C-alpha cells in the first residue's frame, strides 16, 4: 500500500509539472501584462516597459519558466506583484479557506447525496423517491451563483438569519460557531449541484447492485432489508460512488470560484480569477499548481479509498 501511494505520488509529479507548463503557456497568450494592470490609466507603453523591467518580466518566457520552476522546487513561489507579498503566504492563507469551504460542501454532497440516493433507490417509485428525484432535479438545474444570490437575498438580507459574506465576523473571536454560521449559505450553494449528481448516481448504483447475485445470497441467508441495503448494497455501490466523489471534488473546487465571488469567501478561487485578470502570472502559476496538486492528491486518496473498500483492486 505504501509503495502504491508512493508510486501514485511520483507519477502525479509530471501531471502537475505539465499543468504548470500549460498555465505558463496560456498566460503568455493572454494579451496585457502586469505592468498595464498596475499602472491602470497611466499605462503608456513607455511606463509599461519601464515597470516590466523592474518586475523582471523582460526576459524570454522559457527562461522565466525555468527560473520559476527552479525557485518553486526550493519552496519559493515568488512574489505576487498584484498583492505585493510572497505568493506562498497568500496561497497558504487562502487555500485553507477554500479547503474548508470545498471540504464542507463535499461532506454535505457526500452524506446528503448518498443518503438521498440510497433512500431513493430503496423506495423506488415511492413518495420519498419522487420527492428526492424532484429535489435533485432542482439542485442540478440551478446555476450555483444564482442560487447563492437567492440564498443571500432570503436568508441574510430578508430574514437576517445568517451573515451575508466573509468567513468570520470582522470583530470578535474566530470561533467554530462563527465559521459554521458563515459557511452554511456558501457551502449549500456550492454543494447543490454536486449533491444532485451524487444522489442520482447513488440511486443508479444502488439499483444496479440490488440486482446482483450476492444481494440474493444475502437475502437467502435471511439478512434483513436494512442490512441488505445499508450493509450489503451500499458497500458495493460505494465502489462506483467513490470515483464520482472524486470527480465532484474537482467540480466543487472549480465551482468555488463563483461562490467565493458571491459570498466574498477569502479563498483561492477568487484570488485566481483576480490574478488572471491582473495578469499576475506568479500568483496564477502558484495557485493553479496548488489547486491541481490538491486535485491530484484527492484523486489518489479516492483511489486508495477505493482499494480499501474494494479488495479486488490491487493497490
Amino acid at each position, binding site marked *: 500500500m505504501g509503495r502504491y501511494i508512493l508510486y501514485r505520488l511520483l507519477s502525479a509529479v509530471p501531471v502537475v509539472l505539465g499543468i504548470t507548463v500549460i498555465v505558463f503557456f496560456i498566460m503568455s497568450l493572454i494579451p496585457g501584462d502586469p505592468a498595464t494592470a498596475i499602472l491602470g490609466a497611466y499605462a503608456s507603453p513607455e511606463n509599461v516597459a519601464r515597470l516590466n523591467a523592474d518586475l523582471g518580466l523582460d526576459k524570454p518566457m522559457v527562461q522565466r519558466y525555468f527560473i520559476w520552476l527552479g525557485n518553486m522546487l526550493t519552496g519559493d513561489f515568488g512574489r505576487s506583484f498584484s498583492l505585493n507579498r510572497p505568493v506562498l503566504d497568500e496561497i497558504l492563507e487562502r487555500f485553507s479557506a477554500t479547503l474548508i469551504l470545498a471540504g464542507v460542501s463535499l461532506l454535505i454532497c457526500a452524506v446528503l447525496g448518498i443518503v438521498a440516493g440510497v433512500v431513493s433507490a430503496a423506495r423506488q417509485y415511492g413518495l420519498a423517491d419522487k420527492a428526492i428525484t424532484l429535489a435533485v*432535479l432542482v439542485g442540478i438545474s440551478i446555476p450555483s*451563483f*444564482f442560487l447563492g*444570490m437567492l440564498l443571500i437575498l432570503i436568508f441574510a438580507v430578508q430574514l437576517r438569519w445568517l451573515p451575508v459574506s466573509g468567513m468570520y465576523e470582522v470583530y470578535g473571536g474566530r470561533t467554530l460557531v462563527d465559521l459554521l454560521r458563515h459557511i452554511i449559505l456558501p457551502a449549500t450553494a456550492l454543494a447543490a449541484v454536486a449533491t444532485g449528481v451524487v444522489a442520482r448516481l447513488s440511486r443508479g448504483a444502488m439499483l444496479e447492485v440490488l440486482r446482483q447475485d450476492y444481494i440474493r445470497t444475502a437475502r437467502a441467508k*435471511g439478512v434483513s432489508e436494512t442490512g441488505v441495503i445499508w450493509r450489503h448494497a451500499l458497500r*458495493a455501490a460505494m465502489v462506483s460512488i467513490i470515483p464520482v466523489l472524486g470527480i465532484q471534488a474537482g467540480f466543487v473546487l472549480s465551482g468555488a470560484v463563483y461562490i467565493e465571488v458571491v459570498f466574498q469567501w477569502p479563498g483561492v478561487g477568487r484570488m485566481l*480569477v483576480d490574478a488572471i485578470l491582473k495578469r499576475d502570472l506568479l500568483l496564477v502559476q502558484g495557485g493553479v499548481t496548488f489547486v491541481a496538486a490538491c486535485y491530484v492528491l484527492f484523486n489518489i486518496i479516492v483511489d486508495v479509498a477505493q482499494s480499501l473498500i474494494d479488495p479486488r483492486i490491487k493497490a
Partner: protein
Amino acid sequence: MRLFLTLLFRNRLAALGAVLLLALVLLCLVVPLLPLADPNVTDTPNKFLRPFSEGHLLGTDHLGRDLLSRLLWGTRLSLAVGVAAAAAAAFFGTLIGICAGYFGGWIDNGLMRLIDMIMAFPYILLALAIVAALGPGMLNALIAVAAVNVPFFARNIRGISVGLTAREFIDAARLSGQGHARIIVTELLPNVLPVIIVAISTTIGWMVLETAGLSFLGLGSQPPQADLGSMLGEARAALIAAPHTLIVPGAMIFVIVMSINLLGDGLRDALDPRLRSGALARPSPVTRIARPAPPPAETPARGVLDLDGLTTRFEVGAQVYKAVSDVSLTLGKGECLGLIGESGSGKSVTALSVTGLVASPPGVIAGGAARLDGVDLLSLPYRDLRGLRGRRIAYIFQDPLSTLHPLYRIGDQMVEAIRVHRKMPLAEARARCLDLLRTVQIPNAESRLSAYPHELSGGMRQRVGIAMALVNDPEVIIADEPTTALDVTVQAQVLALLDRLRRERGLSILFITHDFGVVGQLCDRVAVMYAGQIVEEGPTASILAAPAHPYTRRLIACVPELGGGRRQLAAIPGLPPAVNRLPAGCAFAPRCDRARPDCQRDPIALRVSGPRAARCLYPEEALS
C-alpha cells in the same frame, strides 16, 4: 424507433421534459417572426419596470429594454451555444476516448495523462484563461466551455471503448481484414453512439449553465446582444432593487436545464436495454405473490419440502412469461432430489420461488404453495419468512464469484449468516465457521476466514458457499447448479463432498442441474423440467434406464458420454418454446417424433404410476 419512443414517453417526466424543450426550441426558432420589441432599444427613463407593465409583459431591465424580448432572444442564443458546445466537446472527446480505448498501451497512457492534466486544472479557470487569451465573445466562450468538457467525454467514451475492444466481435473484425480506422468507424462507433447521445443530452444543460457562468463573469456575449448568462450578470447589481430582472433569466436557465435533464434521463433509460426488461427496478425483499386462491396455510406434510402447484411468472410490460407452471414436488427427509432441465426450463425459478427469492419486478408467484413441514412459506409474513431463510432452508448458488459479496471477507459473511438468526458471541461464531470450513475440506481454513472471495479458486469458493449454507444446520438445502461453473476435476470433488455431507448430516437436498451424469451419481430421485413444467419424475436409476417421456429419452441420448467414442449424436431438432408463447397441449410436441395431433390440443396431466410419473399421452414405454 417506435419502441424507443414508446419507452421514452412511458416515462412521464421525460415526456414533460421533451415537450418543454420542444416548445422552447420552437419558440426560439420563431422568435424573429414574433411581434416583439427590439431587444436592444434602450429607454432609460422606463428602466426596471415591473412585470405586467404596459407594453412590457415581463417588465424592463436596467436600460429600459424589454425583458420578454431579451429573454427569448437570449434563450435562443444560449441554447444554440449549449448545443454547439456539447457537440464540439462530444466530437473531440469521442475522438480521444475511442483512440485511447481502442489502441490502449502508450497511446492510451499519453492521452489519458493529458486529460488528467486538463481535469486537474480548475475548469472555470481554464475557461477563464482561454477566454482571456482569445478575447470575450460568445464564440470564444463556446470554445472554452467545449474545451473544458472534452475530458468528460473522453473518459466516458474511453471506458466504454476499452470494454468493447475486448469483445469478440472486434477480434472477428480484425480477422475479416479490417484496418484500425475501419474498425473504429464501423465497429466501435455505432456501439458507442448511444452513449454519446446520452452524454450529450445530459451535458447540454451543463453547458448552458457553464456558458451562463462565463457570461456572468462578463466573458460571454458582447453587449447589447442578450444571452441568459449576461442577462443574469447585468441584473446582478439589481438583485435587491429589481429582483425580477435577475429571476426572469435565472428561471429560464432553470427551466431549460431541467427539461434537458429530464429528457436526458429519459433518453438514457430508453436506450438502456436492461430497462426494457425492467431489470433496473429494485427487487423487493420477497417475490410479489398474487395467488388468485391462496391455498391453505398448513396441510399435513408429505415430505420436508412440498411444492404444491407452484406457478411463477415474469410480467414484462404486456408480456407474461410462464416460467414455472404448476410444479408439484416432494422432497423427503434425507433425500436428494434432482431437478434437471435445459436453460429456460424453469428449474432455477422453481428453486428461488420456494422462499420468495425470485426478483420482483418482474417475477410474480401466481399460484401454488411451497410448504416446509406442511407450513406454506409463501403465506408467511415477511419477518417469519426471513427467519426461515438460511436457517431452515439454505441455498448454494451456481457461481460463487458473483454470489458471494465481493467486498466482505469470507469469515464475516459466514458469521453474518449465523448472527442474523441468533445471538452468538463473535468468537463462538467464528469458531463455528472455522469448523465448517474444515468440514468442507478447505486447506488453511484459519487464514481463509479472512480472505476475500476473489482470492480463492472456484472450487474453494464453492466449498465456502457450501459451508455457509451449513452454518445454521438447515433441514433443506437447495443447490442451484452448484458445480456448473467448475472445472471437471473440481466438480468431482465438490460432488463427492456434497454426497458425504448429506449422508453424514441427513440433509434434504433439492439439486438443480442440467447434467444427467451428475444426477446419476448424486440423486435418489429426479424430476425433468421442460418449458416450466415437470414432464417426468421418478427414481433416478429407473428413469435413466427407461425414460418414459420422449423428451427425457432424447435429452439423454444427445449428451455424449465419455467412453462412447467418436460418433454421430442424436440431436433434438428445433428449439424449446418461448415461455411467453407456449403452445396448447404438450410443449415438446413440435419437436417430438412421437407426437400425434391430440398432443397439441389440451393441457396434458402428469400421469402417476407408482414411484414414477410422466406428462405424456404416448410415453416411450408404459409405466408399470
